[in-house]
Protein backbone atom coordinates (compact mmCIF):
# COMPACT_ATOMS: atom_id res chain seq x y z
CA UNK A 1 0.00 0.00 0.00
CA UNK A 2 1.17 3.54 -0.77
CA UNK A 3 2.60 5.60 2.10
CA UNK A 4 0.03 8.37 1.56
CA UNK A 5 -2.87 5.95 2.08
CA UNK A 6 -1.24 4.44 5.15
CA UNK A 7 -0.57 7.87 6.64
CA UNK A 8 -4.15 8.99 6.01
CA UNK A 9 -5.32 5.89 7.90
CA UNK A 10 -2.79 6.58 10.70
CA UNK A 11 -4.17 10.10 11.04
CA UNK A 12 -7.48 8.44 11.92
CA UNK A 13 -5.79 6.33 14.58
CA UNK A 14 -5.45 3.11 12.55
CA UNK A 15 -2.73 1.10 14.32
CA UNK A 16 -2.72 -1.66 11.69
CA UNK A 17 -1.79 0.90 9.05
CA UNK A 18 0.98 2.18 11.30
CA UNK A 19 2.26 -1.36 11.77
CA UNK A 20 2.66 -1.65 7.98
CA UNK A 21 4.43 1.70 7.82
CA UNK A 22 6.76 0.78 10.69
CA UNK A 23 7.61 -2.59 9.16
CA UNK A 24 8.42 -0.88 5.88
CA UNK A 25 10.85 1.60 7.41
CA UNK A 26 12.14 -0.03 10.63
CA UNK A 27 15.46 -1.26 9.20
CA UNK A 28 16.24 2.06 7.57
CA UNK A 29 15.25 3.87 10.75
CA UNK A 30 17.50 1.59 12.81
CA UNK A 31 20.43 2.09 10.43
CA UNK A 32 20.04 5.87 10.57
CA UNK A 33 19.93 5.79 14.39
CA UNK A 34 22.95 3.48 14.40
CA UNK A 35 24.99 6.05 12.47
CA UNK A 36 24.41 8.61 15.21
CA UNK A 37 24.63 6.34 18.25
CA UNK A 38 27.21 3.73 17.11
CA UNK A 39 25.48 1.34 19.48
CA UNK A 40 22.86 -1.30 18.49
CA UNK A 41 20.88 -1.09 21.75
CA UNK A 42 20.66 2.71 21.61
CA UNK A 43 19.89 2.61 17.89
CA UNK A 44 16.97 0.22 18.50
CA UNK A 45 15.68 2.42 21.29
CA UNK A 46 16.09 5.74 19.47
CA UNK A 47 14.56 4.50 16.23
CA UNK A 48 11.55 3.27 18.22
CA UNK A 49 11.28 6.60 20.03
CA UNK A 50 11.36 8.20 16.56
CA UNK A 51 8.35 6.11 15.54
CA UNK A 52 6.55 7.00 18.79
CA UNK A 53 7.15 10.73 18.15
CA UNK A 54 6.08 10.34 14.52
CA UNK A 55 2.83 8.69 15.64
CA UNK A 56 2.19 11.54 18.10
CA UNK A 57 2.81 14.17 15.42
CA UNK A 58 1.05 12.32 12.59
CA UNK A 59 -1.91 14.72 12.49
CA UNK A 60 0.47 17.59 11.65
CA UNK A 61 2.26 15.66 8.92
CA UNK A 62 1.72 17.00 5.40
CA UNK A 63 1.05 14.01 3.12
CA UNK A 64 2.40 15.92 0.10
CA UNK A 65 5.90 15.33 1.50
CA UNK A 66 7.52 11.88 1.69
CA UNK A 67 7.37 10.13 5.07
CA UNK A 68 10.93 8.89 5.53
CA UNK A 69 12.74 12.28 5.46
CA UNK A 70 10.40 13.44 8.21
CA UNK A 71 11.07 10.32 10.25
CA UNK A 72 14.81 10.72 9.56
CA UNK A 73 14.73 14.28 10.99
CA UNK A 74 12.86 13.04 14.09
CA UNK A 75 15.36 10.23 14.67
CA UNK A 76 18.36 12.50 14.10
CA UNK A 77 16.88 15.03 16.49
CA UNK A 78 16.24 12.35 19.12
CA UNK A 79 19.76 10.95 18.76
CA UNK A 80 21.39 14.39 18.97
CA UNK A 81 19.33 15.35 22.02
CA UNK A 82 20.40 12.17 23.78
CA UNK A 83 23.98 12.72 22.63
CA UNK A 84 23.82 16.21 24.07
CA UNK A 85 22.60 14.82 27.40
CA UNK A 86 25.39 12.25 27.51
CA UNK A 87 28.35 14.48 26.71
CA UNK A 88 30.73 11.93 28.17
CA UNK A 89 30.16 9.69 25.16
CA UNK A 90 31.23 12.43 22.72
CA UNK A 91 34.67 11.09 21.91
CA UNK A 92 33.42 7.55 21.49
CA UNK A 93 30.78 8.66 19.01
CA UNK A 94 33.35 10.40 16.85
CA UNK A 95 35.03 7.09 16.12
CA UNK A 96 34.50 4.90 13.06
CA UNK A 97 31.29 3.56 11.62
CA UNK A 98 29.35 0.71 13.29
CA UNK A 99 30.01 -1.90 10.61
CA UNK A 100 30.60 -5.65 10.61
CA UNK A 101 31.84 -8.03 7.94
CA UNK A 102 29.44 -10.22 5.99
CA UNK A 103 31.98 -12.65 4.58
CA UNK A 104 33.02 -16.11 5.73
CA UNK A 105 35.83 -16.48 8.31
CA UNK A 106 38.15 -17.97 5.64
CA UNK A 107 37.51 -15.07 3.34
CA UNK A 108 37.91 -12.69 6.25
CA UNK A 109 41.37 -14.01 7.07
CA UNK A 110 42.35 -13.47 3.49
CA UNK A 111 40.89 -9.98 3.26
CA UNK A 112 41.35 -8.84 6.85
CA UNK A 113 44.01 -6.31 5.97
CA UNK A 114 41.88 -4.60 3.35
CA UNK A 115 38.83 -4.50 5.63
CA UNK A 116 40.84 -3.02 8.47
CA UNK A 117 42.33 -0.46 6.10
CA UNK A 118 38.86 0.53 4.92
CA UNK A 119 37.51 0.86 8.45
CA UNK A 120 40.47 2.99 9.41
CA UNK A 121 40.07 5.16 6.32
CA UNK A 122 36.36 5.64 6.94
CA UNK A 123 37.00 6.70 10.52
CA UNK A 124 39.39 9.39 9.31
CA UNK A 125 36.86 11.10 7.05
CA UNK A 126 34.99 14.14 8.29
CA UNK A 127 31.44 13.66 9.57
CA UNK A 128 29.71 14.98 6.45
CA UNK A 129 31.60 12.60 4.15
CA UNK A 130 31.13 9.70 6.53
CA UNK A 131 27.40 10.37 6.67
CA UNK A 132 26.88 10.47 2.93
CA UNK A 133 28.91 7.30 2.35
CA UNK A 134 27.05 5.51 5.14
CA UNK A 135 23.63 6.55 3.84
CA UNK A 136 24.42 5.44 0.31
CA UNK A 137 26.26 2.18 0.98
CA UNK A 138 25.08 0.98 4.35
CA UNK A 139 21.64 2.53 4.96
CA UNK A 140 20.90 1.46 1.39
CA UNK A 141 19.40 4.76 0.33
CA UNK A 142 19.02 6.01 -3.24
CA UNK A 143 20.28 9.43 -4.38
CA UNK A 144 16.68 10.65 -4.31
CA UNK A 145 16.16 9.48 -0.72
CA UNK A 146 19.46 11.01 0.42
CA UNK A 147 18.55 14.28 -1.27
CA UNK A 148 15.20 14.24 0.56
CA UNK A 149 16.62 13.51 3.99
CA UNK A 150 19.48 16.00 3.71
CA UNK A 151 17.30 18.60 1.98
CA UNK A 152 19.71 19.07 -0.94
CA UNK A 153 19.27 18.68 -4.72
CA UNK A 154 20.15 15.28 -6.21
CA UNK A 155 22.97 16.85 -8.26
CA UNK A 156 24.57 18.18 -5.08
CA UNK A 157 24.28 14.76 -3.45
CA UNK A 158 25.95 13.12 -6.45
CA UNK A 159 28.75 15.63 -6.35
CA UNK A 160 29.20 15.38 -2.55
CA UNK A 161 29.24 11.62 -2.75
CA UNK A 162 31.82 11.73 -5.53
CA UNK A 163 34.15 13.88 -3.43
CA UNK A 164 33.51 11.81 -0.31
CA UNK A 165 34.46 8.65 -2.20
CA UNK A 166 37.49 10.40 -3.65
CA UNK A 167 38.60 11.36 -0.15
CA UNK A 168 38.03 7.75 0.92
CA UNK A 169 40.18 6.46 -2.01
CA UNK A 170 42.93 8.83 -1.01
CA UNK A 171 42.79 7.82 2.63
CA UNK A 172 42.59 4.13 1.72
CA UNK A 173 45.64 4.35 -0.53
CA UNK A 174 47.57 6.26 2.11
CA UNK A 175 46.73 3.68 4.78
CA UNK A 176 47.45 0.79 2.42
CA UNK A 177 50.89 2.20 1.61
CA UNK A 178 51.49 2.85 5.28
CA UNK A 179 50.83 -0.82 6.06
CA UNK A 180 53.15 -2.04 3.33
CA UNK A 181 56.10 0.06 4.48
Amino acid at each position, binding site marked *: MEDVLLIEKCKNGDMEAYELLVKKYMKKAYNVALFYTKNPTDAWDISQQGFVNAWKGMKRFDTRSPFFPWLYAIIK*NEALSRYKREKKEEEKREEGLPL*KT*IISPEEYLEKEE*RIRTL*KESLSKLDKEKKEIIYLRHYADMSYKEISEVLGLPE*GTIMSRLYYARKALFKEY*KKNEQGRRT
Partner: protein
Amino acid sequence: MSREEELKSKYFDKNLSEEEKKELKELASKDKKTWDELKEMDNLKEVIDMLEPVNPDREWEEYWSSLYNKLERGIGWIIFSIGAILTLTFLGFQFIKNLIRDSQIALYAKCGFIALLIGFIILFVSVARERLTLMKSDKYSKEVKR
Protein backbone atom coordinates in the same frame (compact mmCIF):
# COMPACT_ATOMS: atom_id res chain seq x y z
CA MET B 1 30.91 18.17 -11.29
CA SER B 2 32.38 17.32 -14.70
CA ARG B 3 30.94 14.75 -17.10
CA GLU B 4 33.89 12.46 -16.40
CA GLU B 5 33.25 12.64 -12.65
CA GLU B 6 29.57 11.91 -13.19
CA LEU B 7 30.43 8.85 -15.28
CA LYS B 8 32.88 7.61 -12.66
CA SER B 9 30.26 8.07 -9.97
CA LYS B 10 27.75 6.06 -11.98
CA TYR B 11 30.43 3.43 -12.63
CA PHE B 12 30.95 3.07 -8.90
CA ASP B 13 27.20 2.61 -8.43
CA LYS B 14 27.07 0.12 -11.35
CA ASN B 15 24.47 2.39 -12.84
CA LEU B 16 25.84 3.19 -16.31
CA SER B 17 23.66 2.96 -19.39
CA GLU B 18 25.11 1.27 -22.51
CA GLU B 19 25.85 4.66 -24.05
CA GLU B 20 27.52 5.91 -20.90
CA LYS B 21 29.64 2.74 -20.74
CA LYS B 22 30.90 3.47 -24.24
CA GLU B 23 31.58 7.08 -23.33
CA LEU B 24 33.58 6.09 -20.25
CA LYS B 25 35.49 3.40 -22.16
CA GLU B 26 36.45 5.99 -24.72
CA LEU B 27 37.63 8.37 -22.04
CA ALA B 28 39.60 5.64 -20.30
CA SER B 29 41.24 4.49 -23.55
CA LYS B 30 42.69 7.98 -23.97
CA ASP B 31 44.07 8.18 -20.44
CA LYS B 32 45.70 5.34 -18.53
CA LYS B 33 45.13 7.18 -15.26
CA THR B 34 41.37 6.83 -15.71
CA TRP B 35 41.75 3.04 -16.16
CA ASP B 36 43.82 2.80 -13.01
CA GLU B 37 41.26 4.86 -11.14
CA LEU B 38 38.44 2.57 -12.29
CA LYS B 39 40.42 -0.48 -11.15
CA GLU B 40 40.97 1.14 -7.77
CA MET B 41 37.26 1.87 -7.58
CA ASP B 42 36.49 -1.83 -8.19
CA ASN B 43 38.93 -2.78 -5.49
CA LEU B 44 37.44 -0.37 -2.97
CA LYS B 45 33.84 -1.22 -3.89
CA GLU B 46 34.62 -4.88 -3.23
CA VAL B 47 35.80 -4.08 0.31
CA ILE B 48 32.90 -1.67 0.95
CA ASP B 49 30.47 -4.45 0.03
CA MET B 50 32.09 -6.81 2.54
CA LEU B 51 30.70 -4.70 5.37
CA GLU B 52 27.22 -3.97 6.64
CA PRO B 53 25.73 -2.12 9.63
CA VAL B 54 25.95 -3.96 12.95
CA ASN B 55 22.74 -5.94 13.57
CA PRO B 56 20.45 -5.08 16.47
CA ASP B 57 20.87 -7.29 19.52
CA ARG B 58 17.19 -8.27 19.29
CA GLU B 59 15.12 -10.01 16.60
CA TRP B 60 13.39 -7.87 13.97
CA GLU B 61 10.13 -9.76 14.69
CA GLU B 62 10.11 -8.11 18.15
CA TYR B 63 10.33 -4.59 16.73
CA TRP B 64 6.65 -3.90 16.19
CA SER B 65 5.46 -5.60 19.40
CA SER B 66 7.86 -3.64 21.61
CA LEU B 67 7.01 -0.41 19.74
CA TYR B 68 3.29 -1.16 20.16
CA ASN B 69 3.81 -1.46 23.93
CA LYS B 70 5.51 1.94 23.99
CA LEU B 71 2.69 3.51 21.98
CA GLU B 72 0.09 1.93 24.24
CA ARG B 73 1.91 3.13 27.34
CA GLY B 74 2.10 6.62 25.82
CA ILE B 75 -1.67 6.70 25.38
CA GLY B 76 -2.02 5.36 28.94
CA TRP B 77 0.15 8.18 30.28
CA ILE B 78 -1.86 10.84 28.45
CA ILE B 79 -5.15 9.50 29.87
CA PHE B 80 -3.58 9.14 33.33
CA SER B 81 -2.25 12.73 33.22
CA ILE B 82 -5.61 14.17 32.16
CA GLY B 83 -7.31 12.19 34.93
CA ALA B 84 -4.72 13.29 37.49
CA ILE B 85 -5.02 16.98 36.52
CA LEU B 86 -8.83 16.90 36.74
CA THR B 87 -8.83 15.00 40.05
CA LEU B 88 -6.18 17.23 41.64
CA THR B 89 -7.97 20.38 40.47
CA PHE B 90 -11.22 19.13 41.96
CA LEU B 91 -9.59 18.06 45.24
CA GLY B 92 -7.66 21.33 45.46
CA PHE B 93 -10.81 23.32 44.91
CA GLN B 94 -12.70 21.31 47.54
CA PHE B 95 -9.81 21.65 49.96
CA ILE B 96 -9.67 25.45 49.62
CA LYS B 97 -13.48 25.70 49.84
CA ASN B 98 -13.58 23.65 53.05
CA LEU B 99 -10.58 25.46 54.44
CA ILE B 100 -12.17 28.87 53.98
CA ARG B 101 -15.49 27.67 55.44
CA ASP B 102 -13.93 25.96 58.47
CA SER B 103 -14.33 28.37 61.39
CA GLN B 104 -12.14 26.24 63.70
CA ILE B 105 -8.98 26.95 61.72
CA ALA B 106 -7.27 30.21 62.48
CA LEU B 107 -7.10 32.85 59.73
CA TYR B 108 -3.26 32.89 59.66
CA ALA B 109 -3.27 29.07 59.14
CA LYS B 110 -5.78 29.42 56.29
CA CYS B 111 -3.61 32.10 54.66
CA GLY B 112 -0.54 29.89 55.15
CA PHE B 113 -2.16 26.89 53.45
CA ILE B 114 -3.44 28.96 50.55
CA ALA B 115 -0.06 30.70 50.08
CA LEU B 116 1.64 27.29 50.10
CA LEU B 117 -0.70 26.01 47.43
CA ILE B 118 -0.44 29.11 45.24
CA GLY B 119 3.35 29.07 45.60
CA PHE B 120 3.46 25.43 44.55
CA ILE B 121 1.28 26.11 41.48
CA ILE B 122 3.45 29.10 40.43
CA LEU B 123 6.65 27.06 40.84
CA PHE B 124 5.18 24.13 38.90
CA VAL B 125 4.00 26.35 36.02
CA SER B 126 7.34 28.19 35.95
CA VAL B 127 9.41 24.99 35.78
CA ALA B 128 7.08 23.49 33.15
CA ARG B 129 7.30 26.67 31.04
CA GLU B 130 11.10 26.73 31.33
CA ARG B 131 11.32 23.10 30.18
CA LEU B 132 9.03 23.83 27.24
CA THR B 133 11.04 26.90 26.19
CA LEU B 134 14.25 24.89 26.44
CA MET B 135 12.79 22.16 24.26
CA LYS B 136 11.69 24.69 21.64
CA SER B 137 15.03 26.54 21.54
CA ASP B 138 17.12 23.34 21.48
CA LYS B 139 19.90 23.95 18.95
CA TYR B 140 19.87 20.31 17.94
CA SER B 141 16.23 20.43 16.94
CA LYS B 142 17.00 23.53 14.89
CA GLU B 143 19.78 21.71 13.14
CA VAL B 144 17.44 19.17 11.60
CA LYS B 145 14.46 21.46 11.09
CA ARG B 146 13.85 21.95 7.39
